[in-house]
Every structure is written in C-alpha cells, then in structure tokens.
C-alpha cells in the first residue's frame, strides 16, 4: 500500500529525494527544544477551536435584550456579540468546551513562546546564523499578544469592555498622533462605531492568524534550513550535527507531544473553568467591576500602567505625553526593543561575529545571562505589581503600600538580579575550571602510578 503511494507520488512529482531528506532530518535531543513545538501544537488547537467558534459568533454591536437560558441575565440589554458568545457558552452543545479550550490554548500558546524565547536567549541560540529566525520569533510573540487581546475583547462582556477602554486610553496617549490614531481604529471616540467590531473580527479570525501562520511557516523553514542548534558535549561540534532522525526516531515523540498538548488543552477546557463571561455581564460605558484582571500574558502591561505615579508630561500647560504612554507604549517597546537589539549589542560588545551552532550554557556567557536575568526580573516585578489588588483582597496588604514598595523594587530588583546572575555564572565557571584541573591532576597521578 505505502510502497504504491510512494512510487506514484514520486512518478508524479519527482520528489523522493525531498522525502528522504525530510524523513532523515536530524533533531538534536534536548527537552528544551520541545517548547517551540508545544507552541505550534497549541496554535493548531487555536485554529481548530477558533474555526468552530466562528461558526456561531456574531460580531455585531446591534443592541438586543437577552431571553436565553441563563436566568440572572434575563432581560439584560446587551450586544449581539455578547449574546452570541453567551449562547456558545450556555446553549450550543460542546460550545463551552470549545470556547474554554480556545482560551486555554491561547494562554498556553503564549506561555510556550515566552519559555521558548527564554531558552533561546539564555543559551545564545539567537547568534549568527540564526538572527532572522529570532526576529521572526519575536514578531510572532508580539502579534500573538495582540491576537489574544483582540480575541477576548470581541466578546463584549464587562471585562472585554474595560480592556478595550484601556487599549483606547493607551492609543490616545501616543504623542502627537494618539487621538488621530484612535479615531482611525475606533472610527471616532470610544466606544467607537459598529464597524470597529467588524475590524476586530476580521483581524482576529483572518488577518492576524494568516500573518501568524505565515511567520510560523518562515520560522520553521529557517529552523530546518539552518538545522537546530545543539548543546556542547559528546560528538557534537560546530560542524557536526548529532541527533535523532525525524523518522522513525523523532516522529512518535513529536506526535506524542502533539497529542499530549491536545489532551492537556481539552482536559483544561473541559474541567478547569476560564473566563466565565456570563458572570461578568454585558459591558456598558458606565460600568466597571473591581478585581478586573486580564489574561496572564497582559499582566506585565497592567502592572506597568498601575505602577506609574500620576502625572502627564505637560509643557507650558499643554499635555504632551499622557500617563498611559509609559506603561502601555514605552514599557513594551523597551522590553521588545532590548530583546530585538540584544543580538547586535552582544556582537559589538563581545566582538564575536562568528556563526555558532553550539549553544552556550547560561554560565558560559555571564554578561548575557546577567542581562537576560535582569530584564526578566524587571518584567516579572512589574507583572507582580499588577496583582497587588489581588494581594490586597486575599492577604489584606495595603494596596498603596504595595505599590510604593514595587516602585522601589522595579529599580532595585533588576540591578540585584544582574549582579547576582553574573556572580553565579562566574563562580560556576571557576568551579568548572577547578573540577577540570582536579580531573587532570588525578589522571596524571594515575598515569605516574602506573608508569
């Protein structure tokens, strides 16, 4: 059977050599290389569940009155968008499973990308010849954040609306063009024209997924054409690649991981509630709720917005830079900007322009590890600051005091982390050298004994 198919395929396409190359493509063997794969499999789940949801969702702001099965919202005024999302959750069979799985998959997708990025940064995998792969990956992460944000904003529940209001405030805060830009996106002042919903919908279900899929394709093509990096040790060298072929060795593992990701996401989607939109109620401009939190991947941004002391920059009484700019525009620009610039900076600082196929251990490059640890610490402290209101509710810590503490930590923690990471790397390297010398001495001693 298979023999026939393979022969006929080659007859028609003359591609047997490609087939062999694909089957025998070598995968270096390390668990940390699987993080990117997890993201890919979560993306597949997102496409599948998202398509299902799109068959039921109605992205319209047309006002309607709820008369569905959920008693607490009987008679509530809401948009068609929110009502159709409620129906998906409460009336469509398997609808809630698909919606929750979609939501979980988005959270896992971005978490896997973030961890994958850390792996790449801490091991120096971004170095030549793989800078392009790295930039494409960073773009995927940025677009994924936007895609996730638009996704939960379209639903038009109370949290969606609050999130959109914040997005609008951040857009307005862009110097000079903020209001004009917001007028373009929203079609006018918040909450915008009904067309704004059409725009979010086409962006979420077509434009951004198409761009993401294209970038993922380019990313994988680059990974395959340059081959994976590998850790030092064994027979691996800068020239020689050592690993398991795609078929038969790697295929069952990767497919196993894919099905494991599917399993985890559907189990989460079925068993662990996420974003119960019927509890939030519909959004109205005049409504807000306490304890509003975004999905985890926007926690760093809400933390930054909350942490800023209250001031707009004004020149002679003229507002120049409104406050949300700092947390909502400048902060993510600095984070992604420094991630994008780091490969160049490192190349200039270290003078190392050679291509690298062997990865560093974090300790092998103390400055890089220190930089990455400091950046991570900075973002994480700000992320924590975004949860200070939960800490207030759960632990009773004064919100104001927490914010004051975070305002200091945000400067101190990265410096301490930088110093500590550098110190640890240097000590570990020294330790390695001592161990090496001892091995050498022992070997010499043994040789002398026998000699």
């Amino acid at each position: 059977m298979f023999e026939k198919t393979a022969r006929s395929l080659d007859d028609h396409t003359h591609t047997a050599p490609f087939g062999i190359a694909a089957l025998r493509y070598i995968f270096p063997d390390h668990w940390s290389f699987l993080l990117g794969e997890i993201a890919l499999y979560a993306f597949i789940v997102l496409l599948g569940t998202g398509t299902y949801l799109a068959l039921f969702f109605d992205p319209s702001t047309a006002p309607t009155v709820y008369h569905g099965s959920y008693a607490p919202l009987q008679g509530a005024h809401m948009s068609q968008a929110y009502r159709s999302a409620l129906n998906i959750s409460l009336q469509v069979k398997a609808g809630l499973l698909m919606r929750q799985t979609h939501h979980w998959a988005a959270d896992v997708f971005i978490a896997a990308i973030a961890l994958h990025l850390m792996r790449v940064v801490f091991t120096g995998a971004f170095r030549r010849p793989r800078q392009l792969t790295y930039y494409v990956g960073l773009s995927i992460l940025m677009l994924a954040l936007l895609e996730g944000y638009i996704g939960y904003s379209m639903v038009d529940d109370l949290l969606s609306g609050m999130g959109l209001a914040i997005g609008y405030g951040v857009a307005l805060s862009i110097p000079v063009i903020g209001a004009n830009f917001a007028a373009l996106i929203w079609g006018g002042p918040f909450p915008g024209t009904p067309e704004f919903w059409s725009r979010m919908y086409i962006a979420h279900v077509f434009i951004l997924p198409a761009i993401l899929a294209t970038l993922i394709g380019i990313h994988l093509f680059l990974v395959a054409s340059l081959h994976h990096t590998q850790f030092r040790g064994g027979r691996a060298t800068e020239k020689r690649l050592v690993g398991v072929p795609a078929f038969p060795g790697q295929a069952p593992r990767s497919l196993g991981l894919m099905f494991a990701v599917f399993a985890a996401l559907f189990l989460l989607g079925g068993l662990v509630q996420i974003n119960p939109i019927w509890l939030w109620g519909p959004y109205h401009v005049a409504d807000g709720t306490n304890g509003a939190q975004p999905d985890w991947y926007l926690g760093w941004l809400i933390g930054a917005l909350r942490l800023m002391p209250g001031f707009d920059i004004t020149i002679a009484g003229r507002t120049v830079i409104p406050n949300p700019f700092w947390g909502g525009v400048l902060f993510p620009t600095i984070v992604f900007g420094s991630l994008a610039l780091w490969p160049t900076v490192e190349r200039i600082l270290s003078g190392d322009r050679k291509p690298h196929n062997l990865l560093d251990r974090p300790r092998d490059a103390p400055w890089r590890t220190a930089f990455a640890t400091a950046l991570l610490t900075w973002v994480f402290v700000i992320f924590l600051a975004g949860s200070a209101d939960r800490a207030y509710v759960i632990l009773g810590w004064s919100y104001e005091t927490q914010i004051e503490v975070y305002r200091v930590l945000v400067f101190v923690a990265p410096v301490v982390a930088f110093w500590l990471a550098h110190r640890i790397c240097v000590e570990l390297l020294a330790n390695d050298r001592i161990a090496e010398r001892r091995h050498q001495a022992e070997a010499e001693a043994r040789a002398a004994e026998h000699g």
Partner: protein
Amino acid sequence: MRRLGRWIVAVAVWLFARRGEGRDRRGDRERIVPAGPPAPRAELVVAALLLLAALSAAAFIAVYAIDRIPDQTQFLGLSLGLAFAFIAAALIVTGRNLVVTEELDGEYADPQPDEAEKLVQIVEESGSRLSRRRLLGGSAAVAGGALGLALLVPAVSLGPVFDLEPFTRTPWHRGRRLVGDDGRPIAAAAIHQLEFATAFPEHADPEQLGAPVVVIRLAPSALHLPPDRRGWAPEGILAFSKICTHAGCAIALYRAPLFQPVEKPPALVCPCHYSTFDPATGGTVVFGPAGRPLPQLPLEIDADGNLRAAGNFSGPVGPSWWGVRDRKAT
C-alpha cells in the same frame, strides 16, 4: 454457548493479534534504518492504548448525544482529552520501544558566497544595457512611493482622523436633567452621604464617554472646591464624569469613610489601575496613575427638587491625548 465465545476470541486473536513474520522481506539488501529486537509486549500495550483512545472517543460521542447529562462540558472535555492522552501514550510507547532511536550525524551547511556572488552577477549583467541607472532607479522609487501612498490613503476613511471635535463633545448642557439608568429624574433628596449614584443625561445616548456621571453628597463644610467652581455643588452634591482620565474605565468604586476620625477621606477610585480622585477638592488625583483631575459637572437643583446640569464639564472627558488640556468639553 461459552465454548462458542471462546472460539470467537481464539479466532479473533489468531486473525489480529498473532505475531507476524516481521517485515524483512529484503534481507539481502543493506539496511538504512538499523534493526532492533521485537518487543511484543509493547505492541500489545500500544494496541490496548489505541483501543482505549477509541473507547474514549466513543464516550465523547455518547456524551454529546445524550442530552440531559449533568456536567456535559466536563465529561466532553474529559472524554476527548483522554482520547488524545491515550494516543499520546501509544505514540510515546511506540517511540520508546517499537522503533529504533538512531543517533545520526549530519553536517551544518555553510553559507555559499560563490553562489551569492553568482546571484549578484546575474542581476548585474541583466542590467548592463542600462546607462541611466540613477534616473531609472529614482523614477522607480518615486513611482513606487507615490503609488504606495495612493494605496494607503483610503485608510483615512476608517475614521474622522483629522477631526478631533467629537473627542471633546459631551451631551451635557445647562438645564439638562440627570436621570438614573431607568430614565427617571434624580431628586437631590435621593442623594445621601456615603452613597454613590450613577446618572445619565436625559434623552441622550448613555453609551458615550461623555454621558455617565457619578453623583455623591459631602457635607458642605468638607468641600474645598477651586474658587471658580463656587455654586457647582448645591447642598454639597457633586457630580463628576464617571470615566477615568487615565485609561477610560468607569470609576466604579467609592471609598467612603464609615468612621471619619481615623479613616481616609472620601475618594472616587477606578478599578482598572486604581487612580484615586478627591471629590472634595474638585476631583484632583490623590493616588494612582491618572495625570489629570476628574472633570466635574456643575449642578443645580430645579424647582421640583431634581438635579440638573448647570453647564458642561470642567475639562475634556476620558483618557488624555496630546494637547487635551487646551480643550474644553463642548
């Protein structure tokens, strides 16, 4: 009967579960994939896992079909998740025990400067007939730029990009009554201290940033409004835009002291980023990220004892933008 059952099982086992001869029909040829020992028990485990996956998938269909099952979402997720999990397990056992995990050597490809050089050569030689390269290149750049711009221009239709007047417009004007979300006028006597009411302009669209206001009552002696706002708070009743000047969320929290001597003074708080405004001083920022006071709406009490606006807000409503302070609410 029982014997018949045993026979059927025996035949099924013989048909499906017996061990084959192996697939080495071409033993004379040199192998590409190295050989390994058979692992019949692992095969049975894989088969069992696949059957369990099938069973779980069937359970999913059953749960879907049975209408009045409690916790349907949970069982749907459980059955589908388990189906995937069993397949994952089957693949992992396959990977560990049923296929060889070879370690192969490969070579990293080098960059190929010769080929790149050839590429450049092809392009260069293709253009060897051109004598006015700069003129052509410049013209092409101008044409491309102009056409690109032309194709971008229709994006202006997306919104009133050069008209910022709608950003300062509010439905409030002198004499407009404050109504609740039921559309009924709000009597001054209905506003009590320590309480917090949301009001809208009568006969106006409530779904615009300029519409909703919060209405509270403070003791007139506690007020420290700016001098130009004298008379804006009849009986100590104050109205502020309900939209935070930081990022546009609704000011949904009112911190009202139940025991004044030790608790903090009253404040309006936004639940998004906890910008905190002092109503007694006219909405100034006392904590949090907002950079501009909350716009205050001047009030008056009409002959029927109902609240009316005595003008428009003290400043533009909602989040700030470039030059917002130069503008007035209109």
